[in-house]
């Protein structure tokens, strides 16, 4: 076999290799865009959720840090000023007229002013906030224990999820308000708080004033900012896109513990 034909064969092989790679990548893209494959991959989410729930004790605590570990400025991600006239007017008045409504499957639907929230049993914790994008920031949070608030409204036995309805619209036209949901195990975890202070100051608007959820064993997108209403439900499939949260409706996992 001559040298030339060897070269041709080599370049043919290289081309075939490149072609196979391109086809494989195109195939991966097709799979990503198909609903059935996304569903198959979702098995991983379910496995992670169940395994973590199995091996993590109910009260396993997220790591807490010293004040010295705190990040100089706590990063604001997503909405930094809700484009919502009702919210803006509340903010202009220092949230004096803010009322957190708590309803759904509860014995006693209630509405809380910020002063009411501040007298609930509270917790202060310096924790690490992990964004799904990969970055982390450490901040000191103070807030009312969600468990204390839920005990006030007395959830009915059928309740499975706590849904947080927020003031920030995710569309430019003011639609698609942010929302999130968590299960009862997380809702009653001691580190799950409705934070009203960040680093010893009133919670800034950029970080979710007047109240934001802290859910320290999951990723940042679960920790709803600008919480206006809390709804206890048995099932969230009837809310917005039905996946239990704004980002979940865009394809992110409902369980963000990993």
């Amino acid at each position, binding site marked *: 076999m001559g040298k030339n034909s060897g070269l041709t064969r080599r370049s043919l092989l290289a081309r075939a290799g490149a072609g196979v*790679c391109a086809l494989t*990548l195109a195939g*991966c*893209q097709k799979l*990503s865009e198909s609903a059935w494959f*996304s569903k*198959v*991959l*979702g*098995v*991983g*989410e379910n*496995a*992670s959720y169940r395994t*973590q729930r199995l*091996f*993590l004790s109910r009260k*396993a*605590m*997220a*790591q*807490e*840090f010293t004040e010295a*570990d705190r*990040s*100089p*400025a*706590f*990063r604001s991600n997503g909405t930094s000023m809700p484009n919502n006239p009702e919210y803006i007017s509340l903010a202009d008045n220092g949230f004096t007229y803010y009322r957190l409504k708590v309803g759904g499957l509860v014995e006693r639907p209630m509405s809380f002013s910020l002063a009411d929230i501040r007298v609930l049993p509270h917790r202060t914790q310096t924790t*690490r906030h*992990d*964004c*799904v*994008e*990969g*970055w*982390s*920031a*450490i901040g000191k949070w103070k807030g009312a224990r969600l468990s204390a608030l839920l005990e006030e409204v007395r959830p009915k036995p059928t309740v499975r999820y706590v849904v947080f309805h927020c003031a920030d619209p995710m569309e430019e036209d003011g639609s698609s308000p942010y929302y999130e949901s968590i299960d009862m195990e997380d809702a009653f975890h001691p580190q799950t708080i409705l934070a009203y202070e960040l680093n010893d100051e009133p919670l800034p608007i950029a970080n979710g004033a007047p109240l934001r959820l802290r859910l*320290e*064993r*999951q*990723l940042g997108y679960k920790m709803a900012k600008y919480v206006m209403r809390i709804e206890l439900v048995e099932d969230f499939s009837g809310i917005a896109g039905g996946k239990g949260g704004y*980002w979940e409706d*865009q*394809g*992110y*996992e409902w369980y*963000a*513990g*990993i």
Partner: protein
Amino acid sequence: MTGSTSSDSTGCLYYRHSLPVRIMHWLMVLLLPILLMSGLNIFNANPELFWGKSSYTGAPPLLEIKSTEDDSGETAGVTKIFGRKFTTTGILGASNGRDGELEERGFPSWLTIPGNRWLSMARRWHLFFAWLLVINSFCLVGYSIFSRHLRRDLLPTTNDWHSIGKTFRDHILLRHPTGAAAQSYNILQKLAYIGVVFILIPLVIMNGLGMSPGIDALFPGWVDVFGGRQSMRTIHFVVAWILVAFTAIHLFQVVVTGFWNNLRSMITGNYRIKSEAEHG
């Protein structure tokens, strides 16, 4: 490397790889590229690496792959490693998207799964196939120990250690063992395989899990053993690339030591050993 040898007209066929090892090997071939490429898509969501507990310690990133506009207003890819800047337009920082337009992107489209900026889907791929990697690695480690594959074939002997200098020289000169010597792994192979299966893959898994806020709550503060969550993200990234380097060298060795023979031995288990005379 169990099995008997049998002679045929072309030399000696030696049963080199047991069926479980072959299956687990090919699963790795499937899993590692998927995990690398979906991982790079996830990396692209925040293309910088830090050392420490958070990304905001005040220290600059160790690695940053971003885009800037150059003097003429064109998009340029810039990679900063330990503060040193490199222009990497076309590959890192800025590269052509699937529509052919130059755009900001850490790693290029052809190195990521999916090919576009799609964090949620990349995470779905990554966290699904990560489960398979965990299971496969667990089986491989367990099998190696209990079938005595580890002790018999992988753990270096005293002789191996004595021959390390010579083996290294032989590798550099592309001189490869023949005959009986080719029946067992040499010291560099043994160290490489032990390193990958017992050190690097467990390390990449552990540092991946360290990024999970749920797993972090398993034992308070265990991530600090690795320097904190952002350090674990950095280690995860670095180990992934060490595995790429291993794979490149491994593939090179597979080709230069007899591609078809090696390929056959990993498919059917049978490896043909040439006699010294035939080879010389």
